[in-house]
């Protein structure tokens, strides 16, 4: 009987053939924590009496509150830097960017087992790695032992066939999956992606989809590792990290869902849950006024996302009543955007360009909403209070829909601006 991608990766990390449902002890290749979860991870690492870090690649990221907006956070970040120095763990600091993007650019290889104290660690699935989010204590154990226990998940096969129409993007695919499965439709399971649309998709778009696997409860969102993966790794200067990795044709899936890319429309997630998804073409009729548009985050803060948004905004201009915030996902994205003149154009358009990092997505700083305000963001979550104010509303959509909305001031279908 063939194996799913999850079963293949766990088999490689336990040294024996494992099947879905088994609890296994597996070695971990990459482990990390960020400034929200890192201090607790460090406390538990010390509490457990560990003296050295045993996971092959361990990192700390200061991306949530960076640069620090207040002294309590500065002290937590200081503690992370000191731990990094003492243990020889690299700390990515303010301005370097978001953990998941940096891991994808520099470290994640197909077939890796990646465990992070951040729920969107599943982004690594875009490169054919099993990336999963865990708590601080679990990651402390991995830092100290190089391994932890895992339940090998059942897998939902997601088949996306066809070609996305102009104005429809990877973000719309994952919002459609959220609509179909609901926010708990894949709890304790992995998603694995198949079909001609996925095969033709670049890794940047695959990362967007894998990033939001956790929004349907999934433990991981796994993409095949193929020629597109090789192209991405080559672009990142590490083609030698490539290897082809796919599920066996006779692998056993828990269930299967199909999406027809040809007929997919731009979608938007309405407050306060990610699976509250509707067609932008319908919502547009309600003329929902938007105060702030945010283009960025680990979901959609990559170079191509900024390019898509800029193309629309350059042609049509920004509505004077909309505050536009642009956040490159990493230093590399920022540098590439600088070289291409993208940042300059956004600044000229009236955008506030913020340093690489999570930005306003976590409700700490740089874009906290006022009472009764509405934001349309390219991020992955719209829970009540998420962006710092429970009396505000968060809408989620693609960079194109975000840009079209910034043009008109209300939620707008991007297809008429393409």
């Amino acid at each position, binding site marked *: 009987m063939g194996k799913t991608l999850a079963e293949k990766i766990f088999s490689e990390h336990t040294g024996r053939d494992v099947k879905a449902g088994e*609890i296994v002890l597996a070695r971990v290749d990459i482990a990390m924590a960020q400034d929200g979860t890192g201090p607790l991870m460090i406390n538990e690492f010390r509490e457990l009496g560990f003296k050295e870090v045993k996971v092959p690649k361990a990192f700390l990221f200061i991306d949530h509150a960076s640069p620090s907006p207040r002294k*309590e956070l500065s002290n937590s970040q200081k503690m992370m830097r000191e731990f990094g120095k003492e243990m020889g763990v690299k700390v990515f600091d303010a301005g370097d960017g978001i953990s998941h993007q940096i891991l994808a650019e520099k470290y994640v290889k197909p077939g890796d087992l990646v465990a*992070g104290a951040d729920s969107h660690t599943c982004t690594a699935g875009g490169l054919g790695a099993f990336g999963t989010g*865990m708590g601080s*204590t679990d990651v402390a154990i991995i830092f100290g032992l190089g391994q932890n*226990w895992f339940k090998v998940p059942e897998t939902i096969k997601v088949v996306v066939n066809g070609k996305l129409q102009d104005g429809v993007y990877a973000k719309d695919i994952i919002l459609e999956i959220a609509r179909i499965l609901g*926010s*708990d439709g894949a709890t304790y399971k992995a998603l694995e992606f198949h079909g001609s649309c996925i095969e033709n998709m670049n890794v940047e778009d695959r990362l967007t989809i894998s990033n939001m696997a956790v929004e349907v409860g999934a433990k991981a969102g796994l993409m095949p590792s193929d020629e597109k993966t090789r192209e991405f790794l080559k672009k990142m200067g590490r083609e030698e990290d490539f290897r082809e990795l796919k599920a066996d044709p006779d692998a056993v899936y828990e269930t299967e869902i199909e999406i027809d890319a040809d007929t997919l429309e731009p979608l938007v997630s309405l407050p306060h849950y990610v699976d509250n998804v509707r067609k932008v073409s319908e919502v547009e009729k309600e003329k929902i006024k938007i105060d702030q548009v945010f283009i960025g985050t680990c979901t959609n803060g990559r170079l191509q996302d900024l390019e898509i948004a800029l193309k629309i905004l350059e042609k049509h201009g920004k509505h004077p009543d909309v505050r536009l915030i642009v956040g490159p996902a990493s230093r590399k994205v920022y540098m590439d955007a600088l070289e291409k003149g993208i940042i300059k154009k956004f600044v000229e358009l009236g955008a506030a360009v913020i340093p690489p990092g999570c930005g306003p997505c976590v409700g700490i700083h740089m874009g906290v909403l006022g009472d009764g305000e509405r934001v349309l963001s390219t991020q992955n979550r719209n829970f009540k*209070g998420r962006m*710092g104010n429970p009396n505000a509303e968060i809408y989620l959509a693609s960079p194109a829909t975000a840009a079209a909305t910034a043009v008109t001031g209300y939620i707008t279908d991007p297809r008429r601006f393409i």
Partner: protein
Amino acid sequence: MIRGRVWKFGDNISTDHIAPGRYFHLRNNLEELAKHVLEDAMEDFAKKVQKGDIIVAGKNFGLGSSREHAARIIKIAGVSCIVAKSFARIFYRNAINVGLPVIELKEVDEINQGDELEIDLENGVLKNLTTGKEYRFTPIPKFLLEILKEDGIVNYLKKHGSFPRV
């Protein structure tokens, strides 16, 4: 045996409801953070909850972030157990890791705010002492029960030196 009074919540209580991002600066000060626990789902919960109380909720409790602080501050607030239709994966694991019992029960709609419950974790029996009804739930897997018995994974590892046997 766990015994306590019920606080009733609905479906999809997220980690943002439990530990809002606006208190990010309190993540290294859990006693203070616990004063805001579940604030965005029930404003005065932290003030009213008493030691031993039980949370009863709908489906997908704890969805969202990996922040273990969410499970920790529920425990710090005095909650002895969470009973829900289902749990989000990361929250479930975090709760076990910090020694907070979490059980899945289909019939949560039959339990009301203020009811008195008695829960037998090992045998999978929940008694509603207020209504007199008794329910059976799938007991927590032995592997995880071992961790709970030691009040969390850190204590377990310190005492036993390795994970429970599968």
